[in-house]
C-alpha cells in the first residue's frame, strides 16, 4: 500500500465518521432539558436499593462490572509504570540531601496534611450517601500524604510510605473487589449482585454491597496512586544514571 492509497483510505473513513457524528449530534436531546429518561430509571432503581447517592449505586451496583474494568485499567497501568520506572542496571540510588523548607510552607503543609487525609477518608466512607466515593477519596488521601514531602523532606515521606506494603495492599484491594463479586455469584444471583440486606436508607451501612465495594475501590485507588507517585518521585529524586554524579 503506497502512502497515497493509505491517505485515501483514511480520508474515506474519516469523512464517514465525521458525517455519522454530525448526524448523531442533530438527534441529541437539547442542552438542559427537563426530560431525563435514563436518570429517572436510575434514581428509581437506586432508591429501591436504599442507596442515597445514585452515582454510587450506578458505579457499585447497577454497573459494578464497568467499575471492575476501570479498576483493572488503573491496576494494569500502575503495574506498567512500576515495570517501566524500575531501577535499571546502569542506574544507582543517591541519597537525596535534606533541604531547608521555608517555615510558612512547612507550617501550612503540616497543618493541611491531617485535614486532607481526614477529608479523603470521609469522602470514601460516605461514598454511598453523598457525592464522592472510593475513587475521589482515594486520590485525595494518596496525594495528601505527599504533603509530608513538602512540609518535611523525602526521608520522612519514605518512612510513612513503605512502597512494598502499598503494592501488596493494592493487589489485596483489587482481589477484594473480585471476591465480593464472586460472593454475589455464590450467595445471590449473579457476579457482583447486591446480595446483602439493603439496610436503613441514608445510613452508613445502607446499600448492601455498595459500601464494601466502595471501600475496596478506595483502598485500591489510594494504594495505586501512592505507588505511582513513589515511582515518579524515586526517578525524580533518587535514581541517577551512572557517571552523572
Amino acid at each position: 500500500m503506497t502512502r497515497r492509497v493509505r491517505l485515501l483510505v483514511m480520508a474515506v473513513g474519516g469523512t464517514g465518521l465525521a458525517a455519522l457524528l454530525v448526524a448523531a449530534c442533530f438527534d441529541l436531546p437539547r442542552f438542559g432539558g427537563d426530560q431525563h429518561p435514563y436518570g429517572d430509571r436510575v434514581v428509581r432503581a437506586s432508591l429501591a436499593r436504599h442507596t442515597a447517592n445514585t452515582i454510587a449505586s450506578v458505579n457499585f451496583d447497577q454497573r459494578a462490572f464497568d467499575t471492575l474494568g476501570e479498576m483493572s485499567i488503573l491496576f494494569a497501568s500502575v503495574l506498567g509504570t512500576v515495570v517501566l520506572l524500575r531501577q535499571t542496571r546502569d542506574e544507582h540510588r543517591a541519597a537525596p540531601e535534606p533541604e531547608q523548607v521555608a517555615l510558612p510552607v512547612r507550617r501550612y503543609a503540616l497543618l493541611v496534611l491531617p485535614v486532607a487525609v481526614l477529608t479523603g477518608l470521609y469522602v470514601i466512607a460516605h461514598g454511598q450517601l453523598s457525592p464522592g466515593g472510593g475513587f475521589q477519596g482515594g486520590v485525595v488521601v494518596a496525594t495528601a500524604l505527599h504533603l509530608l514531602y513538602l512540609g518535611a523532606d523525602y526521608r520522612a515521606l519514605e518512612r510513612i510510605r513503605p512502597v512494598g506494603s502499598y503494592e501488596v495492599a493494592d493487589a489485596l484491594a483489587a482481589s477484594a473487589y473480585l471476591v465480593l463479586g464472586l460472593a454475589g455469584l455464590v450467595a445471590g444471583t449473579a457476579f457482583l449482585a447486591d446480595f446483602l440486606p439493603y439496610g436503613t436508607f441514608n445510613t452508613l451501612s445502607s446499600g448492601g454491597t455498595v459500601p464494601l465495594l466502595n471501600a475496596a475501590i478506595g483502598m485500591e485507588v489510594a494504594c495505586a496512586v501512592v505507588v505511582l507517585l513513589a515511582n515518579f518521585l524515586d526517578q525524580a529524586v533518587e535514581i541517577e544514571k551512572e557517571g552523572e554524579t
Partner: protein
Amino acid sequence: MDDPLIVVALLLVAGSATAAVAVRDPARQALVLAVLGTVLAVLFTVLQAPDVALSQLAVGSALTPLLIMLSVRKVRRPKRREETER
C-alpha cells in the same frame, strides 16, 4: 444555556485551556493545567455533577500537574548538574 453562571464557567474553561496551550514552558504548563482542572471542577459543579467535579478536582488539579512536574524535574536534572559543575 441561559444561566449566566454556566456561560461564565464555560468562558473560564476556554480561557484557561487556551492559556495551557499557549504557555510553552512545561513546568508552568503544569501550573496552568492545575488552574484548568479547578475551573473544570467549577463547571461540573455548576452543571450539577458534583461526583465528576470531585474526581476532576483530585486528578486534574493535583495528581496530573504533580506527575508532570516530577517528570520535568527528572528530564532536566542532569543538565542542571553540568551547569553547576562548570
